[in-house]
């Protein structure tokens, strides 16, 4: 019923601000995300990228402004409610259930998505549907052969893939990926980029990434943040040409 609205913007920020005491980590951010696009979020360290992502996923309290997901306001909702509303994310520092197997990790995400109240009267193994969900994603992220391995003992790259898998199980319309390639070796990196491309089919992805080549290559649109504000946005070419971006980057880096 909200398909027309959905067609326009799947996620909308209206002038949001996140502040810690007097310090404004994110301010004046107004942005509309269209469905099905891959957004690259770039900016120097401390620009507020992760804070913005935290504000969107509910980990950081929004002190001003509003956020809408599919025209439904989620500003005050807790992270799990936003997940339910269709927002998934991965973290800069890998967040997985390290002492459980890869399959168990995924099954947890599956049950979190399937049940609002977690059943307690049957062993978890008897719920076939969640096992099926988990198996499906297991192969989607290319970890079929690691199902019974403890997640903590996976390679770093595989852990990041597992994290994406966990987010996928909530069938998100918007996927927030916080530096999924950080610390991943080059050869594995290509596999990961491939995975990101694949999961971005049919959903909106917001990707924080420092590797400019990758960002420029895979993003449909790029958002540049500086000092908590959005400095510029547009496609790769526009951004490369933008003088403000150039000064900001060159001034920061060298």
């Amino acid at each position, binding site marked *: 019923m909200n398909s027309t609205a959905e067609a326009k913007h799947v996620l909308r920020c209206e002038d949001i601000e996140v502040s*810690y*005491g007097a310090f404004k980590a994110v301010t004046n951010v107004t942005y509309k995300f269209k469905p099905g696009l891959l957004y690259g979020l770039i900016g120097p360290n401390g620009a507020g990228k992760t804070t913005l992502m935290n504000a969107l996923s509910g*980990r*950081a*309290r929004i002190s001003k402004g509003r956020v809408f997901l599919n025209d439904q306001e989620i500003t005050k909702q807790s992270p799990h409610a936003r997940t339910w509303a269709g927002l998934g994310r991965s973290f800069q520092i890998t967040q997985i259930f390290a002492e459980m197997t890869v399959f168990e990790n995924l099954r947890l995400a599956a049950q979190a998505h399937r049940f609002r109240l977690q059943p307690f009267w049957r062993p978890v193994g008897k719920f076939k549907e969640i096992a099926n969900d988990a198996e499906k994603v297991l192969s989607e992220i290319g970890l079929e052969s690691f199902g019974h391995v403890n997640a903590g003992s996976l390679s770093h790259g595989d852990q990041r893939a597992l994290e994406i898998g966990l987010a996928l199980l909530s069938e998100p319309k918007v996927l927030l990926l916080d530096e999924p390639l950080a610390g991943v070796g080059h050869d594995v990196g290509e596999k990961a980029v491939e995975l990101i491309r694949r999961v971005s089919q049919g959903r909106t992805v917001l990707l924080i990434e420092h590797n400019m080549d990758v960002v420029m290559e895979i993003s449909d649109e790029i958002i540049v943040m500086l000092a908590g504000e959005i400095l510029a946005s547009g496609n790769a070419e526009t951004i490369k040409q933008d003088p403000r971006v150039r000064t900001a980057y060159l001034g920061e880096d060298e």
Partner: protein
Amino acid sequence: MSTIVIGLSMGMLLFLLAAGLTLIFGMLRVINFAHGSLYMLGAYLSFQMVNLTGSFWVGLAVAPMIAAIVGALMERIALRPVYDRDHVYQLLLTFGFILVLDEAVRIIWGLEYKQMYPPELFSGAIEMFGSSVPSYRLFIIGFGAAISAALFFMLDRSRYGMIIRAASGDPEMARTLGINVSLVRTGVFSFGAGLAALGGAAAGPLFPIELGMGFNIIIDSFIVVIIGGLGNIRGAVMAALLIGMTRALGYSYAPSWVDFLTFILLIGTLILRPEGLFSRKGRTA
């Protein structure tokens, strides 16, 4: 007015009890349940010193030193192997310390109550605001203030304070800077144990010296430490005075509600400002 003086003395006594606890927590992230037992040990040791030398002051000086050695041993032998584990284990260990320390005191000093008197200098009472205030109470106020000033100076101004703060804030970094973090930990635990014993020695002339004395006091110290903000010495002073005043006023108007009031204050703090009433930092996620 005299109620306020008494409230101050109660507060300062509470501060002496709680200072070591909050210091240890601030540095080691350990809630030391055995703090009450160290306090009791301090009182007994000081009693013993008074018996041997006849001087209250010797007891006040020596008891904390011996307790500090005991504390250092506790830290070295038992706590050190479990720092990298969950905090629960450290807490359980301090539970074990309670039993062992209490037993040791029982074996050494027996079951009988012991008594101590204020030193000659502070044995009388002074007429103030129409009532006679025991001069030992005034001594407690002064002594507590002096100790808190010394602690501030040590933690804020001196090199030791910097080392301690560095080691507790970022142990890895401190290590690379050449600070012997494990020595600092032992030092802080030992110092905290000494402070507990100092509290015991100071409280000796006011309360019966008995085996159960550490048992109730630990809850009082927790209250002060929580209200002040865990690990926050400045907050502990304020909280101790707040509780002291609350109690003093409570005793003068509704004594049977005193414990109740204190707990309401505590629970209110934990619910509204879990980081402590006197914490300066804002609440961060």
